[in-house]
């Protein structure tokens, strides 16, 4: 029996931590939120050198033909470090969407990290202002022109309304949407882990009543519950990736389960992080806000919890 990451995947994860831990990601995020993409794009390039942007692009196009499990390894770390940008769109979704379409020419430049694209699974596209091309994904794949900007609860997510334009291809959007959802789940899981780590570090050093607040059971128990929720979301995310790689008939259901569980766990982590930090947790100035807001935004992105629960139920009912 084997279930878990390979040594190579652990090493990849550590390499991403080394790179992102040394970079000032919060500063890049804050700049990104104001429309200054320079630091974020520099980060994009450095992650491209580690292979992140080429994970799902085929080898002929200069990518790695990597697995969905590899993808979750990368997105968990992107979430942990709070990296801004259209990562899901460019790295998880586009490489499944574009091959075999007239837009296939873009793949090599996506793999090398030169091109960023955005894909709107619904009404809005993320970071269309920095994307070379923007697509609208429905029953068909269309080019789209970004319109009015909308403000996200997470300022680092710059959203633009789109109306589908020229049709590019008739495609089955499901596999690409599933990969986007999977990547989003992994990102949520990573963000949740970060919120927990930062909370644990904080409650060990913040003292009240003459003791570290982490000595108080009311605080301990909140954090223990976060750890439990994250520990049980992780295998669902991993399994969803394994199922997508294997193309099982239940893969879509597994993806939905991962999204619901990772979203719930990350949201619990964010609520708890805010609570144990007290008022400083409620400030923009403090970097914790970057993760709290991102989690709230991602919980509803790539399918709401209600949509995913409905999809799970449908699949379970069908199976009987």
């Amino acid at each position, binding site marked *: *029996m*084997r*279930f*878990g990451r390979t040594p190579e995947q652990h090493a990849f994860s550590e390499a991403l931590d080394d790179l992102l831990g040394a970079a000032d990601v919060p500063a890049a995020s804050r700049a990104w939120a104001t429309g200054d993409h320079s630091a974020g794009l520099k980060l994009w390039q450095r992650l491209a050198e580690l292979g992140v942007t080429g994970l799902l692009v085929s080898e002929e196009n200069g990518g790695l033909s990597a697995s969905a499990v590899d993808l979750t390894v990368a997105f968990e770390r992107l979430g942990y470090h709070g990296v801004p940008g259209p990562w899901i769109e460019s790295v998880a979704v586009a490489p499944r969407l574009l091959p075999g379409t007239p837009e296939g020419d873009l793949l090599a430049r996506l793999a090398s990290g030169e091109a960023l694209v955005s894909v709107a699974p619904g009404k809005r596209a993320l970071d269309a202002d920095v994307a070379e091309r923007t697509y609208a994904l429905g029953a068909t794949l269309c080019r789209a022109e970004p319109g009015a900007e909308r403000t996200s609860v997470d300022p680092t997510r710059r959203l633009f309304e789109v109306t589908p334009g020229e049709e590019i291809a008739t495609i089955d959007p499901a596999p690409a949407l599933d990969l986007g959802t999977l990547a989003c789940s992994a990102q949520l899981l990573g963000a949740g882990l970060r919120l*927990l780590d930062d909370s*644990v570090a904080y*409650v*060990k050093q913040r003292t009240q009543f003459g*003791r*570290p607040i*982490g*000595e*108080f*059971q009311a*605080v*301990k*128990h909140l*954090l*223990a*519950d976060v*750890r*439990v929720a994250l*520990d*049980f*979301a*992780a*295998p*669902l995310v*991993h*399994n969803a990736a*394994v*199922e997508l*790689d*294997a193309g*099982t008939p*239940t893969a879509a259901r*597994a993806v939905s*389960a991962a999204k*619901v*569980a990772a979203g719930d766990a990350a949201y619990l982590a964010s609520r708890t992080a805010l609570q144990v930090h007290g008022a400083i947790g409620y400030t923009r100035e403090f970097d914790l806000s970057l993760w709290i807001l991102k989690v709230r935004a991602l919980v509803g992105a790539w399918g709401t919890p*209600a949509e995913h*629960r*409905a999809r*799970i*139920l449908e699949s*379970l*009912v069908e199976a*009987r």
Partner: protein
Amino acid sequence: MSTLEFTEAEEAFRLEAREWLAANNPGRLPSMDTAEGAAAHREWERTLASGRWSVVTWPETYGGRDASLTEWVIFEEEYYLAGAPTRISQNGISLLAPIIFGHGTEAQKERYLRDMTDGTLVWAQAWSEPEAGSDLASLRATATRVEGGWKLNGQKTWSSRAPFADRGFGLFRSDPSAERHRGLTYFLFDLHTDGVTVRPIDQLDGTPGFAEIFFDDVFVPDEDVLGGVGDGWKVAMSTAGNERGLSLRSPGRFCAAAERLLDLWATDPQSHLRDQVVDAWIGAEAYRLYTWGTVAHVEAGGSVGAEGSINKLWWSELDLSLHETALSLLGADAELSGPWADDYLFSLSGPVYAGTNQIQRNIVAERVLGLPRGGR
């Protein structure tokens, strides 16, 4: 099905278990906490043992199959999917036997292991006392040295299975001058010997599921000391992990209950409880996958420590919410006695026994997250 990777031998093992269970499983038996049910459950243990399915991971010499941890979980999945009975031998097999294997003498292995596998000897765990629950190390029952052995005195309580069991195992203070955790010794004793009084206590469901045990100069020979004299705490803690972790609550149990919950929901698909039904299924699926992750980790040489507490928190809360959802679906009929109501009552005890969930959260916070001790 997901894509966990199993070998051909493991798949063959699954099939063998499935076929045997299909042919032999008696289904739901009367509660094992009644005289009639206890007899039926002992009979089922005998049948299980005759097919060598009662202790699959044990060595063949003691009635096992030398099965791997993976095979054990496979067996448990099949067991619960088949809806086979609860195990009256659980205490012995999963709480006592690992200690006998690890700390017992050859004579103790010979004397006790085989009789545990076929329901001949049913064991009760006598740890808790009226004044020692969460703070187990404050226990007061004593063991005093006498010629050839020890005399036990004091009182234990909440001892599951004790009303119909044969023997007990528990901790006694053998050196009153030593610190709390030291000077405790682990004893095996006969529940039907002179000086032992078992007083059954009805549980919330009305059955005598546990009991008080009174000790009045009960003689226990030296050969029934398990592990070293004074080493009781260390020995006992090596099973606490089992109780919270894998051994007590295998994933098949929750997956099967989640399936039944879906069946129940299907009788009223318009119910506004659909999200709770889905969440119960997700929770069981997460537990199954988490367990396989643990199995892979252990089979690769890793160990499970305080993470057992994470596991206990999950299954106990999951079990409760799963049954609460079922009762909500049943509406006004939820109060009627039946499998859902019975299992619901049992699920209420999950957050209390095997170390309360508050204690588990303390363990996760302190030993997994590294938060400072104190502040009790």
